[in-house]
């Protein structure tokens, strides 16, 4: 089973546009939407959910005021400042460590596990999709990404898939690391803008750190010629192959409004560029 992760560093460079097109083009792939706190793949693939998995990560402290003597030892020991006035826990700040429960001399604190998200195994017109929804304001995005990938690794072989295509989150932190760990190849989608280049360089440091071979795709490639050349030069210096370039165009937005992937929506030059990128990525994955 080969695994490909599509990442970008910067958000909005076209990860999901590309990944959804790959879903349509690939013959035997399971898709994993690992952008768990802003998942969009389902909007294009319209999945039919087969199985729902509850996701529970870290507990949250609960102070039972009827037992609380107001000594304040918990407040002194909480490193996160999660205990507010009146000994109320701020669930958004609490990281579930359990120190308050441990230090409370009155046994007034319990640690409670609540469901903080769901993962789904689904069927789509292109094959299996594994996706998720992180609860509002929940932590542990990285752990939910790991759960999505674990489900995909089970679902893939069951459906005779030989590839898992992972739509990654933006950034370089917890969720990105979870989406990249142990994959065979990363496709980094960038754009020729100062921010695109800056973020490309940072996220490429992450792929290097985890020793993951990478390819680059330049989206909106005609928005700035100098910046495009700068990306090409950077990739040449690093010995990174450019899988393809895609023009600045409203085609993805139009396709999105129709709820379709690019390659279903049109066979124009934009779609042809996307197909070329897929062919390159496929070849690279097989080599």
């Amino acid at each position, binding site marked *: 089973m080969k695994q490909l992760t599509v990442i970008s560093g910067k*958000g909005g460079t076209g990860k999901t546009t590309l990944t959804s097109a790959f879903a349509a083009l690939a013959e035997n792939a399971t898709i994993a939407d690992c952008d*768990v706190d802003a998942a969009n793949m389902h909007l294009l693939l319209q999945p039919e959910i087969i199985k729902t998995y509850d996701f529970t990560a870290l507990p949250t402290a609960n102070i039972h005021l009827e037992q609380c003597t107001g000594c304040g030892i918990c407040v002194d020991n909480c490193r996160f400042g999660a205990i507010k006035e009146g000994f109320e826990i701020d669930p958004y700040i609490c990281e579930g460590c359990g120190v308050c429960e441990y230090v409370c001399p009155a046994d007034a604190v319990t640690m409670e596990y609540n469901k903080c998200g769901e993962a789904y195994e689904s069927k789509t017109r292109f094959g299996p999709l594994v996706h998720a929804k992180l609860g509002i304001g929940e932590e542990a995005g990285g752990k939910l990404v790991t759960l999505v990938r674990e489900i995909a690794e089970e679902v893939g072989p069951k459906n005779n898939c030989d590839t898992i295509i992972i739509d990654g989150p933006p950034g370089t*932190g917890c969720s*990105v690391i979870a989406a990249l760990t142990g994959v065979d190849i990363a496709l980094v989608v960038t754009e020729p803008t100062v921010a695109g280049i800056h973020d490309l360089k940072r996220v490429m*440091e992450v792929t290097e750190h985890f020793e993951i071979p990478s390819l680059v795709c330049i989206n909106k490639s005609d928005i700035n010629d100098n910046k495009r050349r700068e990306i090409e030069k950077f990739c040449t210096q690093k010995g990174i192959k450019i899988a393809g370039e895609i023009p600045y165009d409203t085609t993805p937005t139009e396709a999105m409004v129709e709820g379709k992937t690019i390659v279903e929506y049109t066979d124009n030059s934009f779609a042809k560029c996307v197909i070329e990128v897929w062919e390159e990525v496929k070849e690279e994955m097989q080599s």
Partner: protein
Amino acid sequence: MQTTPAVDMITTETPNMKITVASGKGGTGKTTVAVNFFLSVPKTSLLDCDVEEPNSNLFLHNDLKKVKEVTIPVPVIDEQKCEHCGKCADFCNYNALAALPQKVMVFSDLCHGCGGCSLVCPNDAISETGRSIGNIERSLSGQFHTGLLNIGEAMASPLIKELKTYAGENTVIMDAPPGTACPMITTVEDTDYCILVTEPTPFGLNDLKLAAEVVREMKIPAGVVINRAGVGDGGVEEYCHQTGLPIIMEIPYDRRIAEAYSEGIPFVETMPQWKENFLQMFETIKEAVR
């Protein structure tokens, strides 16, 4: 000393607010809004809280000076004192400690720095040392601060929390990370107003709903900026009308704006008439906070 009434007006009229610029979806224009807003409204400061990929300074071109290396406390085991009882590993909810028969292993990358292991250790064998997670940098004027997370580092939130202590006295604008997970929550927490930047597309709408739900739950007043207005469909506008979420600005889909952006030029510099719109938006926000 006598102050003129005009000065009084300004001081009473400009409450020092904390305003976050957030979005569910990445790449909708958070940094564009934050930077142009900051450049349009006098006496404001800017914090770039997107510490995984901070981009604000690519448009501000400040010389930055490191002001702090941010660390989180992680355990160090004194093997002389440790009796391998395993209480520390049992306590740790982050799996940052593993007790083997002859040794306790520390996985610092997973540690949140809660200090629980040193509290539970019966032999006083655990002390703490700082592990670097990133840096805070500032401009010479001190009006701009940014966080920069170390490469390969998962813990963004403690860095953001520390960065927020540099907010200063003025009204502060905070450029948030994308998404709705902990780094975004940490940024938005304890702020007075949240600007939600979106684009009028199905992806934009889906992620706007998630972000709007977060700020609603956190009871933070919010307004929407629609970027690239004119593309896509009417879903975002419809949602805003239905839920009573005010649309406080629309930035049109304009190749010139995209080109200025690509060069690192804030568009209020090439189209200075836009400063007025940002000032207007600031007034709207002041009204909402009051």
